[in-house]
C-alpha cells in the first residue's frame, strides 16, 4: 500500500512540476502558536500537539498551506507556483478507520493578476490528473456569501459578527435568527439593557464585583454600550433574511446558479462584483476545457472546513461514498496571506490531493 501511495504521489508531484510549479518542502514539526492563532482551539482536536523543552508547543504538520504561505511571504518572487509532497498528520478523536498519517501532494498559485484564471488553472489541473477516477466535483464560493453579508441593511457590528461566523453554520444561523427577530434575545440581555437605562454601566460593574483579570472594567463598559446600541438596531427585514437564506441554500449546476445569483443581485447589489467574478471563473474554466454546464455549485460548500477559504472552493469526491474523505480539495485563501504576511498580502489559490486514496481507487481497493 505504502509503495503504491508513494508511487502515485511521485507521479502527481512530477505532473505539478511539469505544470510549472517549483517543488518546495516544509518542516514536519511546526510551531503550534501560529496554527492555533489561525485555526483556533479546534485544531488541537485534529492535530498532534507535542512539546519541545525550548521551543514550547509544536504540532505535527496538519497541512502544508501555512508553512508554504510563510515561506512565500518571507522570500518568494511573484507570481509563483509551488508544489509539495509529504506526510500530514491528523489526530483521530473517533474510533474508526480514518488515516492518522498520509501523503499529500499540493499545488499552490500566488498571483496578483486575473485571480479567476488562477482558480480555473488549479481546478482544471486537478480535474485532468483525476479524470481516470471519474470523481464528482463540487464547487462553491465563500466570497459570494461574504458579499451577501456585506450588503445586509444592519449595523456594521452585526455584519462583522456574521462574517466572523461564516465558517460556523450553526452559530451563523443563530445570529441571523436573532438579528431577524425569529428568536428572542436572551432574557438576561433584556434585563441588562433595562438596568443600563436607569444606572450608568460603571456603577453596575462596580456593584457586581471587584475587577479581576486582564479584561478591564473599561472593556466591560464598552461592550455594555455596544449592547445598548445593538438593542436599538432595527431587525433585519424578512425580505433580506429570505434572500440570505436563498443564497446560502443555493445548489444547482454552475450556469443555473449563476443565472439565479444574477437575479438575486437585483435585490442585493452588494453581491454583483462577486457574481461577476463567478461568471469570469466559469469562462476561464470553459477555456480550459471544463464542462461547466454539468459542474455542481453549492453556495455553502467549504463552510465547515478549516476556516481560511474566502473565495472559490472545490472538492473532488467519490460519488455515493460518504465514508471516504474527499480525494482532493482546495480553494482561494487571500485573507490567510494577509494574516501571515505581517502587513503584506497576495491573492492565493491552491489545493491538495491524497495520493493514497487515488492509488486505492485506481486498484479498486477503496
Amino acid at each position: 500500500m505504502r509503495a503504491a501511495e508513494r508511487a502515485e504521489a511521485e507521479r502527481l508531484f512530477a505532473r505539478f512540476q511539469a505544470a510549472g510549479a517549483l517543488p518546495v518542502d516544509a518542516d514536519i514539526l511546526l510551531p503550534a502558536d501560529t496554527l492555533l492563532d489561525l485555526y483556533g482551539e479546534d485544531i488541537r482536536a485534529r492535530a498532534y500537539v507535542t512539546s519541545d523543552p525550548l521551543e514550547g508547543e509544536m504540532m505535527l504538520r496538519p497541512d502544508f498551506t501555512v508553512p508554504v504561505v510563510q515561506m512565500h511571504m518571507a522570500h518568494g518572487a511573484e507570481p509563483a507556483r509551488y508544489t509539495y509532497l509529504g506526510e500530514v498528520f491528523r489526530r483521530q478523536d473517533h474510533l474508526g478507520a480514518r488515516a492518522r498519517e498520509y501523503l499529500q501532494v499540493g499545488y499552490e498559485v500566488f498571483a496578483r493578476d486575473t485571480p479567476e484564471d488562477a482558480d480555473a488553472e488549479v481546478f482544471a489541473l486537478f480535474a485532468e490528473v483525476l479524470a481516470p477516477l471519474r470523481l464528482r466535483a463540487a464547487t462553491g464560493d465563500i466570497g459570494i456569501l461574504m458579499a451577501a453579508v456585506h450588503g445586509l441593511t444592519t449595523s456594521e457590528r452585526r455584519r462583522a459578527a456574521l462574517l466572523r461566523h461564516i465558517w460556523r453554520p450553526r452559530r451563523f444561523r443563530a445570529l441571523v435568527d436573532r438579528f431577524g427577530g425569529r428568536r428572542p434575545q436572551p432574557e438576561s440581555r433584556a434585563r441588562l439593557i433595562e438596568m443600563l437605562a436607569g444606572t450608568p454601566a460603571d456603577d453596575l460593574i462596580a456593584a457586581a464585583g471587584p475587577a479581576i483579570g486582564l479584561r478591564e472594567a473599561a472593556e466591560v463598559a464598552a461592550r455594555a454600550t455596544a449592547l445598548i446600541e445593538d438593542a436599538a438596531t432595527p431587525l433585519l427585514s424578512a425580505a433580506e433574511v429570505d434572500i440570505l437564506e436563498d443564497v446560502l441554500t443555493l445548489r444547482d449546476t454552475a450556469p443555473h446558479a449563476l443565472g439565479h445569483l444574477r437575479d438575486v443581485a437585483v435585490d442585493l447589489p452588494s453581491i454583483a462584483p462577486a457574481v461577476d467574478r463567478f461568471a469570469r471563473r466559469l469562462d476561464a474554466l470553459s477555456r480550459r476545457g471544463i464542462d461547466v454546464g454539468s459542474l455542481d455549485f453549492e453556495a455553502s460548500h467549504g463552510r465547515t472546513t478549516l476556516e481560511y477559504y474566502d473565495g472559490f472552493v472545490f472538492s473532488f469526491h467519490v460519488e455515493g461514498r460518504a465514508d471516504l474523505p474527499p480525494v482532493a480539495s482546495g480553494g482561494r485563501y487571500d485573507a490567510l496571506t494577509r494574516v501571515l504576511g505581517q502587513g503584506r498580502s497576495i491573492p492565493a489559490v491552491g489545493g491538495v490531493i491524497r495520493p493514497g486514496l487515488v492509488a486505492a481507487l485506481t486498484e479498486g481497493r477503496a
Partner: protein
Amino acid sequence: MSLKIGVPSKGRLMEKTFEWFGARGVEIRRAGSEREYSARVDGADGVQAVLLSAGEIPRELAAGRIHLGVTGSDLVREKLADWEDQVAELAALGFGFADLVIAVPAFWIDVDTLDDLDAAASAFRAAHGHRLRIATKYHRLVRDFLRDNGVADYQLVDSQGATEGTVKNLTAEAIADITSSGETLRANHLKILSDGLIHRSEATLFAARAADWSNGAHPALEALLATLRIDMPERL
C-alpha cells in the same frame, strides 16, 4: 478467572462506593493495612475488587484490564474518545455530584451567555492581541462544548488545581471547572454562565467493552447485576 471491578482507592468516593454496594448486599472492604491498595469482596462469587485512583479508572476500563469500574461520569467523558463505544453505563450511583461549568468574573455584567462570551472573546482578542484564555483540566469536554456552541477566539490553558484563582492571578480570563455548590466560585468573584453547564457529573458504575468476558466473567457479571438489581446492558 474472576470479574475485576475497579473502585476508587480513597476518600469519600471510596466510602460512598463501599456503602452503595453494601446496601445492596455486596460487601467491599479494604484488605490489610490502611496503606495497602487491595480489597475483599463478600456476597458476590468470582468478583475481585481493585483499588485504583478514580482518575485512572477510565483508562483501565478502556484497556479492558478491569471489567467494571466506579468513577465520575465527567472523567470517563473527558479521558475516553467515543466513550460510549468503549464503556457501557450500568448505573448512576446517586453520589459524587458535581457540575462542570464555565465561569467568568462576576463584574462582567455584559456576559451571561455563551453568545456573550463569544462576542467578548472577539473584542478581547482585538484589544489584547491574544485569544481569551479559559483555564481548565477538562480539555476535551470544554473544547467539544465550545465548538458545538460556535464559540471562537478562545484558548484553553491547562490548570490542574486552584483553577478558580487563575483569573485573579492573570493566567486566564475565564475558567471551566467542577463545582458542587458554587461557593468557591463566588468566593473568587466568579459567576456561572446561564447556559454554561457542560456536564452534570455523578459517580457511575461502568462496564468495559474491551475486557475479556469469556472464562466465567460474563456469568459472574450476570449474578452480580442480579444481586445489585441492575439491568444487563445491551451488547456487552
